[in-house]
């Protein structure tokens, strides 16, 4: 056995990731001589001691807090509490009372289920959910996520209606399972997006890193890797897989738009999806097939991107209805 493998074997042991065959190999190695045993002790000692790195870097917390407080005060004040809620307070109270009593009856008659939590978002709103297992979910607009407060049992189960980006913490012992409107998605640990608005008739899974299993009823499961995408069309009961998908569909989350030679029509579709806009495509045929190149990092607004596009094609941008735009005139450059 060569030297690299031996050090790696020690490392796997230290991180608790020896497989059965590794373990046999390790035991054999330890019996093979004093030198190997010493090496093992030494590497363990280095590993343990390194746990306190970086000892020498101790920031000045008092000074940092004063700095931070100023930045906090510069933040805009959040919108006031919904006054509508207060106006309807009697109605809400009555409904609540009804709910509470129904709930107690139900509670009485049910075996104790895991406590479930629900997070939902309005239009123009995102929510970040950080689960106890280290998984982070960013919920896009108009979406609903249901999840247990604590994961118990063999799988980590959540339910999604809407769009979300998942960064699932790795745990081979407990697969993470998402029940979407049509299919289910199963993973061990990876990051990907699911778009599954109830009643939309379409479902999409796009994988950013790692491997994901997507199962639709009565269909063969899809195994998706980095850059793979499946779009399911309910009307046709058909799912189409594509590879090398663009990550622009994730821009609502990453804030990073990258177009390299993408036709304008596709750019506008990305903007429609990410910003909830629409375009009068039929009125702009002369430039729809023009190619757009450019990158817009750091959460640009739709207006910024559209301004750059209209400038480069010499077209003018018009808002015909609220959130509905058209680009008039212009030619490919």
């Amino acid at each position: 056995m060569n030297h690299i493998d031996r050090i790696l074997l020690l490392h796997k042991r230290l991180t608790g990731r020896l497989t059965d065959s590794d373990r046999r190999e390790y035991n054999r190695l330890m019996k093979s001589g004093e030198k190997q045993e010493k090496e093992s002790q030494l590497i363990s000692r280095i590993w343990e001691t390194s746990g306190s790195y970086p000892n020498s870097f101790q920031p000045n917390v008092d000074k940092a807090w004063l700095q931070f407080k100023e930045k906090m005060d510069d933040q805009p004040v959040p919108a006031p509490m919904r006054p509508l809620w207060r106006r309807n307070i009697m109605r809400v109270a009555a409904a609540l009372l009804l709910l509470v009593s129904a709930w107690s009856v139900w509670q009485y008659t049910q075996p104790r289920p895991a406590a479930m939590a629900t997070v939902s978002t309005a239009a123009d709103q995102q929510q970040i959910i950080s689960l106890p297992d280290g998984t982070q979910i960013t919920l896009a607009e108009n979406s609903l996520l249901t999840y247990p407060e604590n994961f118990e049992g063999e799988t980590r189960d959540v339910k999604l209606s809407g769009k979300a980006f998942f960064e699932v913490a790795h745990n081979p012992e407990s697969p993470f399972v998402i029940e979407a409107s049509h299919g289910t998605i199963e993973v061990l640990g990876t990051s990907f997006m699911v778009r599954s608005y109830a009643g939309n008739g379409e479902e999409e899974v796009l994988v950013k890193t790692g491997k994901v299993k997507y199962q639709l009823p009565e269909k063969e499961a899809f195994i998706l890797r980095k850059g793979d995408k499946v779009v399911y069309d309910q009307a046709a009961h058909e799912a189409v897989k594509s590879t090398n998908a663009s990550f622009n569909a994730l821009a609502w989350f990453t804030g990073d738009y990258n177009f390299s030679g993408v036709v304008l029509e596709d750019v506008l579709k990305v903007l429609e999806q990410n910003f909830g806009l629409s375009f009068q495509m039929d009125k702009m045929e002369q430039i729809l097939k023009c190619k757009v190149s450019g990158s817009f990092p750091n959460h640009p607004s739709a207006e910024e991107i559209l301004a750059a596009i209209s400038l480069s094609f010499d077209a003018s941008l018009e808002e015909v209805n609220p959130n509905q735009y058209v680009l008039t005139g212009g030619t490919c450059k």
Partner: protein
Amino acid sequence: MSLPNKATDQELMRALAKGQEEAMEVIFRKYYTGICQAAYRILPDPAVAEDLAQDVLLELWRRRDELHISGSISAYLRRAVVNRALNYIRDQRLKLKEGEDAINDSGEDAKAVALLESKDLEKQIDQAIENLPDRCRLVFVLSRFEELTYAEIAEKLDISVKTVENQISKALKLLRKALAPYTDKNLGVLLFLIFLLGG
């Protein structure tokens, strides 16, 4: 309303959602050093590490209405700052120093190191980690402190699992080599005696 001294994470998050600055101060004082150090391990520049830590905490304050933390606040912040630091490297297209491939390592062991006093060893190891080539250090700290698997590290850094394995092995060898000056046989015997007498 004042916060109890030992407010739980859930209590802190509730107070935060109400916009209470004092909840933010409790969180800040409790976790700032830890988050700075987590960032520093990835980007060993004190000023950059503090900037990243403050960005992550400011994000917590700014998005306090949108955040639902079921796990611990510290795990959330730690994860956020590590991701931010890795993105920083990617966005700034920082050149990672690769160091030499071959390590002149005889495989002869630093027999006495195990007997060195902890404090000294800590200092030596800190220095040795700091001196690792960039990519090598990154792979090492992601394994050591973020407890990621080889596959997860490969994913985060966009390199192959094989490269991760090579870098882990290289890191451990370089650390061992850096401690070689302490392997002097006489010193070893001496320390061994001290160890026996003191033990």
